[in-house]
């Protein structure tokens, strides 16, 4: 491990219940700065649930209850004084299905900076929209049609627009919940390429069902199984020399 490696998020003994059902049984995990961490595991293992804990999207589910610590740069994001709105500007999220707002491409990117008062409309906003779209590698494709609806783009372009929209608030962490599962291989390749660039500036956590994708894009991999974190380590180690038999069975495709 690098000596200068920094921990962005530190999760200690995180448990989560949906009503009486315990979905996560005490997760301990470190997410390192400016790296890509992949969560893998069979369906229903809790990896998406866990990802959604990281920017408190689970707050919207009434029956959901959480115990344990989820530290972002040392402070607990579940502390009572934490403003969820502020948290989500630091920890952005990209979803499984591309979900641009049914507004113009420009508006999609400008929306969040505007509601958070980061930038006022005008040349500053134009610049922010442009840099965000450039960072998401979609500027060249949309620069001539910024006023057209974002929903008219192709699936892969929509997903990159969603990434641009997330980048626009300058988050520290970007959570990606199976961002390529609704995309074709070419669009997927573009997103993966983009992740590689983005990790210079952002900490990325990605949930994926695609083993090859996890192996390709991530620096660290966490293997979840039935609400437990079975194994966590450098991706290369997980894929070449897993410690647990379960992990090996899963990544070699014996089950899951």
């Amino acid at each position: 491990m690098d000596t200068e490696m920094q921990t962005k998020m530190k999760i200690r003994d995180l448990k989560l219940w949906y009503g009486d059902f315990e979905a996560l049984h005490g997760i301990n995990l470190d997410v390192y700065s400016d790296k890509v961490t992949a969560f893998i595991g069979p369906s229903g293992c809790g990896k998406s649930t866990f990802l959604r804990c990281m920017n408190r999207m689970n707050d919207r589910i009434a029956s959901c209850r959480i115990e344990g610590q989820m530290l972002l740069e040392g402070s607990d994001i579940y502390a009572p004084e934490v403003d969820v709105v502020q948290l989500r500007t630091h920890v952005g999220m990209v979803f499984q299905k591309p979900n641009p707002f049914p507004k113009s491409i420009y508006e999609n990117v400008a929306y969040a900076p505007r509601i958070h008062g980061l930038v006022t409309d005008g040349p500053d906003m134009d610049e922010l929209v442009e840099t965000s779209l450039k960072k998401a590698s979609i500027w060249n494709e949309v620069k001539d049609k910024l006023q057209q609806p974002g929903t008219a783009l192709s699936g892969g372009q929509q997903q990159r627009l969603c990434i641009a929209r997330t980048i626009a608030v300058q988050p520290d962490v970007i959570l990606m919940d199976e961002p390529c599962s609704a995309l074709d291989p070419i669009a997927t390749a573009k997103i993966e390429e983009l992740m590689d660039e983005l990790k210079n500036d952002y900490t990325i956590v990605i949930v994926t069902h695609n083993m090859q994708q996890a192996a390709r894009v991530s620096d660290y991999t966490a293997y979840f199984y039935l609400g437990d974190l079975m194994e966590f380590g450098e991706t290369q180690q997980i894929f070449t020399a897993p410690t647990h038999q379960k992990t090996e069975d899963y990544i070699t495709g014996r089950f899951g």
Partner: protein
Amino acid sequence: MHNKADNFLHQGVHPRKRKRERADARFHFYGLAAVSLALGFLVIFFIDIIGQALPAFHLTEVLVKVHYTEAVKSNYNKAIDHKLSRIVGRSWLRSLPMKIEANPALIGTEEELWIAADSRVDQYLKGHDGHGLKNKYRKIVDKMQQQGKVRDVFNWAFFQSGDSKLPESAGILAAAIGSLFTLLITMLVAVPIGVMTAIYLEEFATDNTFTRLVEVNINNLAAIPSILYGLLGLAIFINFMGVPRSSALAGGLTLALMTLPLIIIATRAALRAVPESIREAAFGLGASSLQVAWHHVLPLAMPGILTGSIIGLAQAMGETAPLIIVGMMAYIPDAPGSILEATTVLPAQIYTWSTESMRGYSERTAAGIMVLLTVLLSLNALAVKLRNRSEKNW
């Protein structure tokens, strides 16, 4: 060399195929028959109503010589030839003393005027024989017709006046204005309350016993017979709050009670139709609940909300039962000047006319139905148009 495909391709028509096709054809026929039957009833209904209503849109006028004298002030019959007193509409005759009062210079002059004929004359000329018009008057009318002193004109009075005890001057205007006032009250009360309730229940409320209770009750309220809302309106608005009886305010508030559950249900359906992914996207960017609802969910749900509200209001507009109880089913000839004055509404006016025995009123009943249907169909067309627009934007 024998494979399965060969077998079934060379077997000829399979018996199950024939059976299946017959069943399909039968099903097709039943569906078509049901649609034709429904359409048939609709066509019969429209032909009947329009056929009955058309005569109400034109009116007989007669040319009479009017003498303005001092005596007319005390006896308006003296203004015209006494033979014509049964032929000319009485409401015009009754207005003569006031006309002279207002303009004394008229005294001593005379003029020839086209005056709306009495309803019996009108009916006689429209071919409805034996309707209370005596033979001697029929002869006078026939003679006037030969002299060109009878003409058939469009019945503007129907759209320019309120109810009357004389069919020839009974019109729809007062009821239409009453309906407009009532509907405005209903809209101003039911739409904001209904939409806000739905937004709260759908976007903000947590799922607990209380909200579930509210939900069940709203759904039940939509199924309550409308006359019960009339009783509720009477008890709350008129008896308790002291709203004037028969007023547009009392009727509008009562109809608002009735429309509220419909608007809430329609709005909730519209909100629920907004994809969850849009909410997630907005929440994920750090939008607050209010911002998510206001910036993203409401604009997308708006066409659905408008459609639901318009259909709810259209139903309120055609409602009669609750208005009986709050006193709007009455003979009210004048258009209301304010929401506190006694008024009637279109369906109530139609009902009032339908209970009158004179033939002129049955025409006006059908004409009133046509006016009401036109308004309702326009409202529904507007709702459909909004719905189509929403599909385009999606």
